[in-house]
């Protein structure tokens, strides 16, 4: 089908996707580097291109509270934030998932304070890893746009009904002018479809209670229902991604395998770093080094079975984390991957924490990890948790 090739910054691309979803309500509070996304969306509203009701609130806690009220009323609802804004939403982030409200949120990844830093890392999103939201990470503007569209379908699916985060790297994606293909408005909307909430506060013929006291009698069972809903994301996401692939020619999955078929050495990366990694992997492939990449897109729910299938039997694995777990054994992605591969034949799995506060992840850093992977595969005992690109 015909698609329009344009140059947009990541924030503009995601704003476009949100416009095409025709949300009933959007709640917004500005924070760098998310601000331009909502700014662009507000422009669409002001120009009459979409009739979303914008609620301009006084804090991110209120932004998520307003989104919860709106979604509980039965409206297609979205919001966006970054870093400290996400941290301030905290209490309500859990409530959104617990109430099974399919709110869509752009989380433009930025380091948490202190000291104050406006640049990218994943510490904001990783803090929300256990909150019950769907979390998808994106490599570039195209993938951010596509994911924002697909996440409406996945989160609002009757089998799922969970809030979803579209994560994309602050500045590195949000503020970089990048070429991407856009669907036309009607095609995009037809793909997502209209939203009809199963239970809505505004449906006065069928009154419901939302958010009552839930103590020792039923709370646990309600947590079980969230766990089950997360499991049902897998078949729904696969179906949505496959349909999107047929529509656009752009295929997505829980993760992307790049030159992985015969790879002895594997790097596992989230977000914009994947592209930089691919360029260096090509250089090493030209030299005959069998190295590949697993770019993880879906982090929650974590596709453990598929990951084990792909990673088992490799000679050495490097997991890169753009966030730290202070005092923990490695970063959150490392912990997850290493735990997933327990009981598989012994593949050494090492961790590199990198790029905190937007420290550039450059070609040399990728090369450094591949060199280390070669040493590990050759039997050298190297430190398991490492820092990459730090000046000490």
């Amino acid at each position, binding site marked *: 089908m015909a698609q329009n090739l344009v140059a947009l*910054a990541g924030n503009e691309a995601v704003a476009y996707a949100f416009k095409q979803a025709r949300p009933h309500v959007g709640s917004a509070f500005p924070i760098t580097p998310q601000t331009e996304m909502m700014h662009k969306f507000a422009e669409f509203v002001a120009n009459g291109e979409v009739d979303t009701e914008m609620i301009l609130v006084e804090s991110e806690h209120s932004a998520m509270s307003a989104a919860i009220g709106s979604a509980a009323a039965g409206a297609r609802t979205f919001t966006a934030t970054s870093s400290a804004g996400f941290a301030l939403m905290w209490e309500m982030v859990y409530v959104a998932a617990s109430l099974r409200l399919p709110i869509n949120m752009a989380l433009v990844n930025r380091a948490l304070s202190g000291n104050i830093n406006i640049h990218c890392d994943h510490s904001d999103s990783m803090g929300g890893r256990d909150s019950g939201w769907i979390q998808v990470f994106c490599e570039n503007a195209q993938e951010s746009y596509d994911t924002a569209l697909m996440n409406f379908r996945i989160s609002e699916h009757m089998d799922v009904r969970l809030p979803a985060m579209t994560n994309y790297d602050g500045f590195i994606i949000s503020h970089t*002018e990048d070429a991407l293909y856009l669907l036309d408005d009607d095609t995009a909307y037809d793909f997502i479809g209209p939203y009809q909430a199963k239970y809505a506060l505004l449906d006065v013929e069928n009154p419901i209670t939302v958010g009552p006291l839930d103590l020792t009698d039923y709370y646990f069972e309600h947590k079980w229902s969230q766990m089950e809903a997360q499991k049902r994301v897998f078949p729904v996401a696969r179906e949505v991604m496959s349909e999107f692939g047929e529509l656009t020619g752009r295929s997505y999955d829980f993760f992307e395998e790049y030159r992985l078929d015969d790879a002895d050495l594997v790097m596992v990366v989230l977000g914009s770093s994947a592209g930089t990694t691919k360029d260096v992997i090509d250089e090493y492939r030209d030299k005959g080094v069998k190295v590949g990449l697993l770019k993880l897109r879906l982090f929650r729910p974590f596709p453990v079975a598929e990951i084990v299938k792909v990673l088992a039997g490799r000679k050495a694995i490097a997991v890169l984390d753009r966030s730290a777990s202070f005092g923990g054994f490695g970063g959150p992605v490392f912990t997850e991957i290493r735990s997933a591969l327990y009981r598989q034949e012994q593949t050494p799995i090492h961790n590199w924490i990198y790029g905190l506060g937007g420290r550039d992840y450059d070609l040399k850093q990728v090369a450094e990890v591949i060199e280390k992977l070669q040493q590990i595969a050759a039997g050298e005992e190297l430190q398991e948790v490492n820092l990459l690109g730090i000046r000490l």
Partner: protein
Amino acid sequence: MAGPMVEIRWHARGGQGAKTAAMFLAEAVLDKGKFGQGFPEYGPERRGAPVRGYTRIADAPIRRHCSVEEPDIVIVLDSTLLESKSAGVTAGTSADTVFLINTSESPEAIGKRLDVDGAKVYTVDATQIALDSFGRSIPNMPMVGALLVVEELMTIDELKIALAKRFSQKFSQAIVDGNVTAVERAYKELRSA
């Protein structure tokens, strides 16, 4: 990376339009069937502070998302940055790097100041051209015009059309026309050693 890629690094001071130029170019090459990536280095946003911008242009989608460390082309909007250590104008450059400097000085004089063996240096007085053309010392677009001499990304006429299209959304007709005049003049007045 499938096919060749041109990597450009912009050095300027806040307010000179390096960000606009870096991102404008990334968009403008789309019409030539090429893929562009443009972004500034975001730091403290102060007028006058040294800033960098980056543009990559390639025949295939651009995957890497790091800053440009080994530029093919270095464009300097403010020649007072040449000796600045923190600006790092010559960092990661080689004998193959092309330098485009906004200055009233000659390429030979700038070559001595840069002190890079075999560097290919071009100069143009983009600030004067900007002042003459639209009355403001914003030399970013004239430097894009000058760039076309060393890297044929598009014709000067195609640049003028792209510029008018993009700038007319944001600026007065006088500023648009002035910039169109300025890119053409800079294109003609670029000097090499």
